[in-house]
């Protein structure tokens, strides 16, 4: 099943670095997933996230307020 990955962040450097890492992990491991960047503050607030960047996989908030490592993202996606 295709996983739905959302990256929440208002466009700060940390959010961009998280996006880069997630994209990299998805493409190198051929993971079936869609990546969506959520930059709208209203949307971010709907998910009750107070610290960005945040990583949401299939509607579950997995990481808040920090940039994860590639291994960590891979583990979360499997």
């Amino acid at each position, binding site marked *: 099943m295709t996983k739905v990955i959302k990256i929440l*962040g*208002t*466009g*700060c450097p*940390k*959010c961009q670095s998280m996006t880069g890492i997630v994209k990299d992990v998805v493409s190198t491991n051929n993971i079936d997933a869609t990546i969506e960047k959520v930059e709208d*503050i*209203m949307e*971010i*607030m709907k998910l*009750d*996230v*107070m*610290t*960005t960047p945040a990583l949401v996989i299939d509607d579950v*908030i997995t990481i*808040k*307020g*920090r*940039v994860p*490592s590639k291994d*960590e993202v891979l583990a979360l996606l499997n």
Partner: protein
Amino acid sequence: MFDWAQNIADWFVYDVLNLSKEQHLVGALSFFIYDTTKILILLFVVIFFMGIVNSYFPIDKVKNYLSRNKLFGLEYLMASLFGVVTPFCSCSSVPLFIGFVRGGIPLGVTFSFLITSPLVNEIAIGLFVGLFGLKTTIIYVVSGVLLGTISGIIFQNLKLEGYLTPWVKEVLANAQRDQDIFQVEKYSFKQRLPIIWAEVVKILKGIIPYVLVGIAIGGLMHGYIPEGFFEKYMDEDNLFAVPIATILAIPMYSNASGILPVVQVLVAKGIPLGTAIAFMMGVIGLSLPEAMLLKKVMSVKLITIFFAVVTLCIIISGYLFNIIL
């Protein structure tokens, strides 16, 4: 405590590199190695410690605590104290602000947190201990916490809700002291450690270049500016020194870690500590990019009042320090 670092620096410069003690530049090199070693170790320790605290006490817990407990006036102080142990990236300030407001936390209390958190952060504390010693660090931290507390109380009494942007007013109207279903991360210390470690390394990597450049510039100035040079311009009797220093500091937001080592030399050369602390608070605590981000939730008028109140409090504490110290 750091005699050994001085010994290593001396050993490296005089014995390994075999340089002569008489030269000006050689002394500066030894000073540079000593200072860098000491400051990097202190930064590492403080950032690591804060990382552990933060891992067990994340922002969501802070919010739930402040939203749940009626503290009879102490909530400003608590919010300010929480600000010390929970650092946040400036790009999180908007979601944080909304999260607090939505949790029914009064605007003034939210401001207390938003002011202290960047002002008293782990990098500033590490640098302060390394450059100015423990006593000055404690003075800085205590005054930072009080500054956040008092500014928060002032904001609450100014009744500024009307200056929020319309959609935030709506959030405010629907605010409730709700407890978000907060998933407690049930990780063991062993599982947390690699994550904390990675953050520490990332933060250090980001600031090391600035720290090195700052210490190098400071070291050179140390050698070339005569003792007491600034006293005639910036002595304690000069009433304009504190406001000028504070206002000069506002645009210097991005490289506090490079500016602090330079300020330390300026203090050694005769700038009063209160003036210097006001300057450093301005550098660390007032950031223009953060103000721009806040436009999403506040009117320009409110942001201006916010900056004005904090600047004023910084200037007042600068004067106080010059009188007390």
